[in-house]
């Protein structure tokens, strides 16, 4: 009896030992396993044109309902007053709905020569104050609105032209980079002397709730403004202004990381892109212009709609990776790290614990960004400061989901103005702090370059 009991104990011990051994093996491979799950538990494996438009997993019925209300708000096409529904467009505007720029919740498309701007806009300013941000250009505010409702003048008509320059990789293969040149035609009034402009493409809006959930401490850990570690990379935090809380705050969103929160980003877009006033930005974008008098002065957007749209954006899930175990993809990932891309395109973060937002709380995510701004060189510079970010500095773009851009948006236009027409061009535009890494890529063999591109396509 005693021996049987002893044998049982030994048996149980062996079973437990084997289980722990297995567990240890799983933990050893945890990074590889999680790498498929770009957005942690908020990852979805949808590869079609709806890949960026999926809601978070595991939300309550109430939250799903809120998400759906926000979804409708995001798609709603605005009209000028008076109208039964979705009124308040203009008097000057860039586009008519959130979804018209962020098509499929994805990336905007660069206009071809002769095409009107649709999902690309131009910021304008006369200077910058690091505490208050870019200063409005007299008569034009902070953004050029190239469309207007009836009876009102667009601020100007923007046309784009491109100049092409050919280059070669070390192995002799050629590539071409196009540089956009913007012309401001027929301004409604004289443009102020010394104005500065910055082109900004509509960015993907999925996964932003997770990026907002990364702790400030974790973001700042990667900042090295003075390049103390001497690796040539000096990531810098930008600090924008939180209008609701009336304080400076770490910027996370927008091409120069000047926007601290999703709701403020959304409210700013309603106001500036569509001329739709709201509780965060209640003054028409045409303020200061003669045509401002056309505004009826009322708040155009219901507070609940703005909140729902911000919630919708916060709760858009991240597409999972494809082919992550493919040998060429794995090779590309290794090269990506070896040549230095991952110094700024930081692979992973763990979001902070947040009892009020269990969906985003404590998630291992793989956004491939450090959320910091970096000097990207003179070629990409807009020469327009934005809070702490200089004219050469741009935020490291998240790369998650980037391989689905063509499927969702029908193009592979990348960078802040969409000038890059594919991954190769986007990489080869990198300069400044990324010069060494770009040159490393330039010196790769064709096979190695292809592997990096295949890796990017798997994100």
């Amino acid at each position, binding site marked *: 009896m005693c021996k049987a009991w002893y044998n049982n104990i030994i048996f149980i011990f062996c079973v437990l030992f084997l289980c722990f051994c297995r567990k240890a093996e799983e933990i050893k491979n945890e990074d590889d396993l999680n790498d498929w799950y770009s957005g942690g538990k908020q990852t979805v494996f949808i590869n*079609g044109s709806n890949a960026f438009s999926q809601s978070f997993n595991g939300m309550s019925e109430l939250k799903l309902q809120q998400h759906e209300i926000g979804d409708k708000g995001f798609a709603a096409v605005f009209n000028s007053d008076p109208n039964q529904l979705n009124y308040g467009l203009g008097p000057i505007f860039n586009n008519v709905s959130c979804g018209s720029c962020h098509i499929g919740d994805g990336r905007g498309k660069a206009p071809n020569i002769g095409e009107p701007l649709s999902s690309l806009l131009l910021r304008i300013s006369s200077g910058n104050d690091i505490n208050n941000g870019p200063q409005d250009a007299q008569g034009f505010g902070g953004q050029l609105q190239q469309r207007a409702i009836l009876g009102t003048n667009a601020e100007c008509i923007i046309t784009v032209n491109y100049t092409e320059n050919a280059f070669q990789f070390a192995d002799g293969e050629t590539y071409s980079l196009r540089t956009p040149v913007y012309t401001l035609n027929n301004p409604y009034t004289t443009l102020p002397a010394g104005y500065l402009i910055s082109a900004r493409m509509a960015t993907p809006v999925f996964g932003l709730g997770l990026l907002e959930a990364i702790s400030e401490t974790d973001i700042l850990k990667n900042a090295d403004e003075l390049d103390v570690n001497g690796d040539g990379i000096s990531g810098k935090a930008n600090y924008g202004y939180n209008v609701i809380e009336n304080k400076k705050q770490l910027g996370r969103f927008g091409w120069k990381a000047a926007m601290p929160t999703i709701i403020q980003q959304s409210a700013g877009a309603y106001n500036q892109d569509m001329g739709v006033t709201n509780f965060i930005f209640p003054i028409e974008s045409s303020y200061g212009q003669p045509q401002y008098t056309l505004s009826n002065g009322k708040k155009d957007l219901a507070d609940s709609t703005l909140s729902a749209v911000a919630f919708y954006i916060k709760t858009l899930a991240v597409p999972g990776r494809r082919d992550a175990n493919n040998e060429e993809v794995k090779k590309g990932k290794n090269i990506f790290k070896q040549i230095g891309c991952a110094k700024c395109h930081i692979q992973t973060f763990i979001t902070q614990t947040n009892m009020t937002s269990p969906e985003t709380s404590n998630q291992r995510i793989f956004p491939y960004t450090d959320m910091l701004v970096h000097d990207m060189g003179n070629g990409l510079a807009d020469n327009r400061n934005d809070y702490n970010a200089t004219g050469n500095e741009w935020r490291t773009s998240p790369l998650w989901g980037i391989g689905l851009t063509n499927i969702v948006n029908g193009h592979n236009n990348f960078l802040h103005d969409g000038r890059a027409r594919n991954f190769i061009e986007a990489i080869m535009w990198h300069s400044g702090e990324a010069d060494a890494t770009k040159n490393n890529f330039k010196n790769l063999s064709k096979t190695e370059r292809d592997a990096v591109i295949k890796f990017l396509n798997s994100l």
Partner: protein
Amino acid sequence: MSNIFCKLFLGVMIFSFITIACKKSKNSAIVTLSPEESTQFYKSVLADLSANVIVNTYNDLKDKSIIFYFNCKTFSLSPTASNLNICKQNWKDVRSAWEQAEGFLFGPVVIDNVDPRIDTWPVNFVRIDSVLNSSAIYDSTYIASLEDGLKGFHPIEYLLFGANGLKNETQFTAREKDLLISLSLNLNYLCGDLYSKWDITKPNSYHNYLSHAGNNNNAIFPNLKSAYDQILDAMISICDEVPNGKIAEPFNAQNPALEESPFAKNSLVDFTNNIKSVQNIYLGAYAYTDGKGLEDVIKQGNLSMDGVIKQKLSAALTSLNNISIPFGLAISQQQTQIQNTITTINDLKNYLETTVKPYVQSLVQ
């Protein structure tokens, strides 16, 4: 004798076996294919479905919009009751093709932002009157510059049918006729552009991406699953929008001004055509063309699911047909039928989402 009997018996047995086997083969679509055969079969379904349903619908849309444009010009030159009625019918014809294209709202129609430019409602009467009262020349640049709610189907509907739906040929001003021609030309341009992007004869058409899903270097549909997901997501999406947006919003608000096509009293036809669009994709048929559709994928291994889908499609169409008065009135006077329609179409949506899509995903990689 015995030998003859044996031969006769054997012959009858063989005949019976063949007859039963053939009959079985005809009645049951359940077949077993090798992995290679399956891949080819799933590709052939996509190719058929794209060519016979999607491309043909857009082709029809384009052709009908051309006819509409020319008849608007004819009406402008000869504003008779008969010519106006032709235009009104033409508008409904174009509308029918467009609504039957809403079951596959993906690709160029989304990427190029065509949908808001062609189908935004409610109509802003006041602003249309401003357009009419202005001195603007209605050239293509001017029309393109208008906000989206002032062009496309519904402003045209307003001009043609009038706010009360009873507009006659004597009530048109010269400016209204000019604007009608320009808006119908703009509509034709957008419809033609859509067809062009799906045109089978063009190497980079969206049809080629869809029908060659899974081929090497297919940048849009790198595998079959992504293509089938796309098709099913689009079907599910319109089955969500019709009951929960197009019907529920005016119904819940009890506001007929929010309905989709109030002036032509065409909303119920619109909704019906949306469901027909889903049915077209499922059956692989549009107008006079027919080929393989999603049903062939389902029937291959699950006849009962095929039956349920067809029953739910039929129920959805019947529920819409049971609303016997214009939608704007029905939201207050036939609330039971409206609620039943919302429930029935949502039932179809849920089945597609929770049962059909996972099943297709289990088949197609």
